[in-house]
């Protein structure tokens, strides 16, 4: 009896891992930032609809941030995600508009398959080059980005608007949540609206969380990123695991492209430009390290929401200019990077800091 309770107590005392700690910090900062916005900005931030707006506008970013988290946990990088979104959106828009496609649920399903297929093709190509030919992932995915952007403009230089009624009706479909709505001045209840894309993004986050945490492949990806040699000695097929991580990443980018099309039904050569860097930033803010082996898609989700919230705050403030937004993004990123560095080093981890920045930690010994 006593041994059991002692074991339980010891389990309770088990400290947070670094990734969990960083994730907790980012969740706390998101909550604090949002609360400040509610207090100081008021207006839209006091309505639940604002959260859903953030989700609706950034659904695609959440999905590609997950795509990046998966490869970053495996110790790689994928900067082609934005390009793949651009290509997917353009290809799907042209496909939906082509005369041979009849209007109907089949065409929408085929479009979804096309989007996933494009993403998967990029994932397989890049995964093969990175894992089986051992080429540096940065260069491979950079070439992938060039390829995707080039193919997009080859398909069409001009913007393509989707005219398929079937698809547009899906775009119009909103999930209504009455109990989170608010009462307008004339007494009508306006329910909170969520787009299908936002729901897809949330489901993706939950699925990827469970996958990385409990599935065999997910755990192998962590092992691979943590230490490739150890993973190899444990009998993990390192090459196949890395290949599959890039494949998952590509598939998610294709899905993100479809979600983008459901939010803005038009293809354009500049769709999701530079979004790969936003996705990397979101992953880092959420506690994923570029060195691999650490990270969590829940943290990534909150990282994306932090970026989205700060942009919304600036858009609603008098400083509504793109260069202010970029500066705020940079400052935020810098803050989180320094915070991570300090937190990790004060826990006695591999990062070294000058003495004046070290939080004294000696007493515990």
């Amino acid at each position, binding site marked *: 009896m006593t041994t059991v309770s002692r074991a339980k107590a010891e389990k309770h005392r088990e400290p947070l891992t670094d990734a969990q700690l960083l994730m907790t910090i980012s969740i706390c900062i998101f909550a604090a930032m949002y609360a400040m916005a509610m207090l100081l900005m008021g207006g839209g931030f006091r309505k639940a609809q604002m959260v859903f707006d953030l989700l609706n506008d950034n659904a695609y970013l959440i999905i590609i941030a997950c795509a990046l988290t998966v490869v970053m946990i495996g110790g790689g990088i994928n900067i082609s995600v934005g390009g793949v979104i651009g290509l997917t959106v353009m290809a799907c828009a042209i496909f939906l508009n082509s005369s041979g496609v009849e209007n109907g649920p089949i065409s929408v399903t085929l479009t979804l398959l096309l989007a996933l297929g494009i993403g998967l093709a990029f994932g397989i190509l890049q995964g093969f080059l990175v894992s089986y*030919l*051992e080429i540096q992932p940065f*260069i491979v995915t950079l070439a992938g980005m060039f*390829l995707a952007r080039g193919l997009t403009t080859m398909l069409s230089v001009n913007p393509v608007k989707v005219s398929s009624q079937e698809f547009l009706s899906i775009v119009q479909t909103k999930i209504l949540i009455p109990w989170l709505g608010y009462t307008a001045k004339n007494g009508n209840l306006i329910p909170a609206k969520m787009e299908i894309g936002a729901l897809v993004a949330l489901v993706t986050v939950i699925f990827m969380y469970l996958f990385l945490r409990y599935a065999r492949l997910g755990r192998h990806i962590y092992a691979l990123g943590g230490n490739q040699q150890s993973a190899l000695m444990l009998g993990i097929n390192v090459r196949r695991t890395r290949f599959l991580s890039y494949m998952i990443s590509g598939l998610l980018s294709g899905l993100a492209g479809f979600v983008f099309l459901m939010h803005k039904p038009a293809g354009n050569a500049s769709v999701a430009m530079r979004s790969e860097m936003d996705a990397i930033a979101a992953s880092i803010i959420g506690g994923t390290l570029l060195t691999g082996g650490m990270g969590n898609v829940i943290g990534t989700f909150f990282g994306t929401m932090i970026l989205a919230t700060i942009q919304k705050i600036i858009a609603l403030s008098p400083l509504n200019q793109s260069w202010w937004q970029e500066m705020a993004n940079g400052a935020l990123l810098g803050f989180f990077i320094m915070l991570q560095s300090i937190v990790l080093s004060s826990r006695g981890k591999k990062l070294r800091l000058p003495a004046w920045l070290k939080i004294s930690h000696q007493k515990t010994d």
Partner: protein
Amino acid sequence: MHGKKKWYASLGQLLIPLVAMALLILFNLLRDPGFFSIGLATNSSGNRVLTGNIISIIDSASELAIISMGMTLVTAACGGQDISVGAVGAISGAVFVKVLQAMGSISVGSVLLGLLLCCLATILFKLFNGTLVAVFHIQPMIATLILYSCGRSIAYWINGDATPQLNSPIISTIGMTLPGIPVPTPIFAVILVGLLLVLVFRLTTTQLYTQTVGINQGAARLNGIHPTAVKLLSFALLGVCVSVAAVTGVCRLGQLNHKTLLADIEMDAILAVAIGGNSLGGGRFRLSGSILGAYIIQMLTTTLYAMNVAPVNVKAYKAVVIIIIVIAGSPVVKSKLTALWAKFRTGKSDSIRRKEAD
């Protein structure tokens, strides 16, 4: 394998880029021999200048060549890349223009002062990156992501105006040609920066130290090398390269556009480093490889333009060629090809020969 050194072994990492360059030249020769014609023409300011595709390739690759030299150093010392070179280049150009506007008149002295001040400002920004990398041990790509995302906004903020103009014969001299010399001036900028770096490496132990830190930082420290100082030095030298490239870019157009100055050059510079056969993981490096890589990229682009490929579509073809080059340079492909070649020559497979050797 046989103890005898092959003639191509001395080229080492330069073999693949040289072959790629030769193939590009051969392809152009077969396609259109007129591609290589060089002529003399008189430009708008009355100077005799050389014209032709080759001259324009060497001229317009100048900024890329300069920046890829600096990128090679950072890659070698830190094992990562600085992705903020384009954004910091915009800041650098903004400082240059600001100084010239503050001086009132544009003379040789004010241009030199502008270059000096913008060089100092760029070094400061690069040292910010360098501090994050060397002192706080943050991955270079992440650390430089900060300035990547806000650098162009800072450039906008410095000048306030979207596209300030610089109208002066001195500026166009720096950007285009010197009177009496038919070679475009930016080429001299590449040679100057190259000479500066070569002098630094030949006269001091910097090259050895940089490679040592890149290969094994712990071992370097035990041998009395200060890794932090070496990394900061590499970032400072990158700062010099970026400021020279930015001034060249501003002078070439005679105006500053904080959105398009050195746009996307970070990706091309990293490509140039990789095509030149340098490891992106740090360690040994060859500046000549990166310079060759920069000219390969520019030659590829010019070739595609000459083949009437629309500028927006160039990226896709570029990607295909890059993938082919990196596959050719892949260690796996190399060892497979070597084994295949050995089998072809001896008529026996690698494993059989190994057994015989035992």
